[in-house]
Structure formats: structure tokens, C-alpha cells
């Protein structure tokens, strides 16, 4: 009982500390979503605490993903005029991007000889966690592995997104928003808000559309590769 509670407190405390540190030294490799889990993994391995014990406390934090996802309705509501104005660009780019996400993931995974269950677990990785896990279950993947890979996508998306934006000189808020929301779901969306409220809400919409398109198309696309 005590150990899970300690794990819960430690998760929040280390995150708080890392976040403050990141604010002072905003370097990519200090991203809280990279550094905090790394510290916690080392702690668990070092103290021999099994993940189940850790999660018995920490799942209270995970449970907040639900309400945190739902309140994405608020920035969408506030930025409705911008979203309406760019509806066509957003929908067509996200449809294009989320299809590319599934196809390239399955194709590269297949080319690297990863086994079928892993390809099925990887394919919906661009969708937000609850959707990706549901899709993974339907197509025959392993939902818990999908959850970890979705997270990996989020972490890497936060790191790679700004590099892509800089490399291609992407200046448009709509483009920045769809890039983060389609490429890195909710984690990317939180990064998109650093580029402004408009980019953030466009990213929220892109994330929802990506989840929706992924839900509709993954089983179709996977059929071609397995």
C-alpha cells in the first residue's frame, strides 16, 4: 500500500522538478517526457520494484488522460472560426498524413523483418493512446506494447517536430498544427501549444481526425502487409 503511494508521489515530484529544470534550460534532450520516465525506469530497476507495484500507484496519473483529452474541446470551441476557415486544408492534410503514417510504419516494419504481431502493434501508433490500443486489439496486436510505442511516438514527435519545421521552413500555423497533431497525437499537441493557441487547437483537431481515420483504415492497410 505504501510503496505504490510512494511511486505516485515520486512520479509527480520528479516530473515537477524536471519541468522546472526544462523551463530554465529548454534543450530538446531535457524534454520532461524523455527525462522523467528515464529517471523512473532507472529507479525501478535499481530498487527492483516491479512495474505492477509502480502502476498500482501511478495509474491515478494515467487516469487523468481521459479528462485531459476531453477538455481539448475547449481550445477547439475557442478557435472555431480559424478551424472553420481552414477546414479543407486540415482535413485533407490529416487524411493524407495519417494514411502515410500507417503505410510507412507497416512497410518499414515489414522490411526490417519484425514479426506480424509487432507490425499490428506498431501500425496504429499515430493515434492517441486509447484509440491506438483499441485498434491494436481488433487487428491482433498487443495493446500494452502499442501503448508504449504510442508513447515513443509522442516523445520522438516532440523532439523531431521542431526539427522538421525548421528544416522545411514551415511558418504557417495550420501546417504546424497538423504536423504535430497527425505526427505525434496528444504529446505533439502539447508541443504545438508552445507555438501558439491557434497551432495548438489545429493540432487538437488533427489529433482527433487522425484517431478517427486510423480507426477506420488500419485493418484495411494491414491486410496488404501481413
Amino acid at each position: 500500500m505504501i510503496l505504490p503511494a510512494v511511486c505516485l508521489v515520486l512520479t509527480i515530484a520528479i516530473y515537477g522538478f524536471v519541468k522546472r529544470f526544462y523551463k530554465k534550460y529548454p534543450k530538446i534532450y531535457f524534454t520532461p517526457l524523455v527525462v522523467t520516465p528515464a529517471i523512473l525506469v532507472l529507479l525501478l530497476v535499481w530498487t527492483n520494484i516491479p512495474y505492477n507495484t509502480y502502476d498500482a500507484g501511478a495509474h491515478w496519473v494515467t487516469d487523468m488522460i481521459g479528462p485531459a483529452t476531453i477538455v481539448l474541446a475547449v481550445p477547439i470551441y475557442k478557435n472555431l472560426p480559424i478551424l472553420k476557415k481552414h477546414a479543407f486544408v486540415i482535413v485533407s492534410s490529416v487524411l493524407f498524413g495519417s494514411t502515410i503514417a500507417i503505410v510507412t510504419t507497416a512497410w518499414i516494419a515489414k522490411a526490417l523483418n519484425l514479426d506480424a504481431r509487432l507490425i499490428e502493434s506498431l501500425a496504429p501508433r499515430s493515434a492517441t493512446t486509447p484509440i491506438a490500443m483499441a485498434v491494436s486489439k481488433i487487428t491482433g496486436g498487443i495493446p500494452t506494447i502499442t501503448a508504449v510505442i504510442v508513447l515513443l511516438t509522442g516523445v520522438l514527435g516532440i523532439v523531431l517536430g521542431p526539427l522538421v519545421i525548421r528544416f522545411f521552413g514551415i511558418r504557417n500555423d495550420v501546417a504546424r498544427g497538423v504536423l504535430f497533431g497527425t505526427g505525434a497525437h496528444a504529446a505533439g499537441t502539447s508541443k504545438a501549444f508552445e507555438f501558439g493557441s491557434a497551432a495548438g487547437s489545429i493540432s487538437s483537431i488533427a489529433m482527433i481526425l487522425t484517431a478517427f481515420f486510423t480507426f477506420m483504415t488500419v485493418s484495411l492497410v494491414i491486410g496488404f502487409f501481413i
Partner: protein
Amino acid sequence: MSTWLKSAAQVVFLIAFSWLMNLIMEICHLNIPGSIVGIVVLFVLLQTKVVKLEWIDLGAKWLLAEMLLFFIPSAVGIVQYKDLMLASGLRILVVVVVSILVVMAATGLMAENLAKAKETNAS
């Protein structure tokens, strides 16, 4: 009421709302996550003024600002797959990195060019 208390009360309300959405999805045997349906429902409630923005604005701001925290325990979940990561981790990393780069570049460039084309058409 202080801002802090207001935020906390609003967060509690939003947690209850989220819990209710999951419950409804479960009762109806729908395979759609409650949080996704919840976005749509909350948006409609805001749009129809059934829920006023100031009832949830502070709580929403806090939840969105701390979003990354909520993903951390799932990220720590990687410790359960040590063998898998040792055997296939590098290949998984290659898949995810390459795919993200292609997706982000394609999506971003397409939107940038479509938006530009629209502007030139308009002017």
C-alpha cells in the same frame, strides 16, 4: 473563491464527466473510447451554452498544461518489455523515427502549400 480552489473544483467536475462518458460507452457496448466521444459531447454542450465556458475554463487550462505528466507512467511501462526491446528495440526505433519524419514532412508541407495556394487564389 481563490483561483486555485476554482481550478481544483473544475478538474473534479471534468474527471466526473470523463468517468460518466466511459460508463455510457461501456453500458452501450461501444468499442469507442469515452474520451473521444467526450470531446464531441463537451464541444456540443459548450456550443449550445448548456455548459458555460467559465465553468470549466480554469480546470481545462490546468489539465492541458500538465498533459505530459499523465503519459509518464505509460512511458515507464517500457520496463516490462526488456527482452522485446533488446531483441527488436533498435528496429522499432528506426520504424518510428523514419515514419514520423516522413509523416510530419508530408503533412506539414501539404498543409503549407494548400494554405499558400488558397491565399494566392483569394487575393
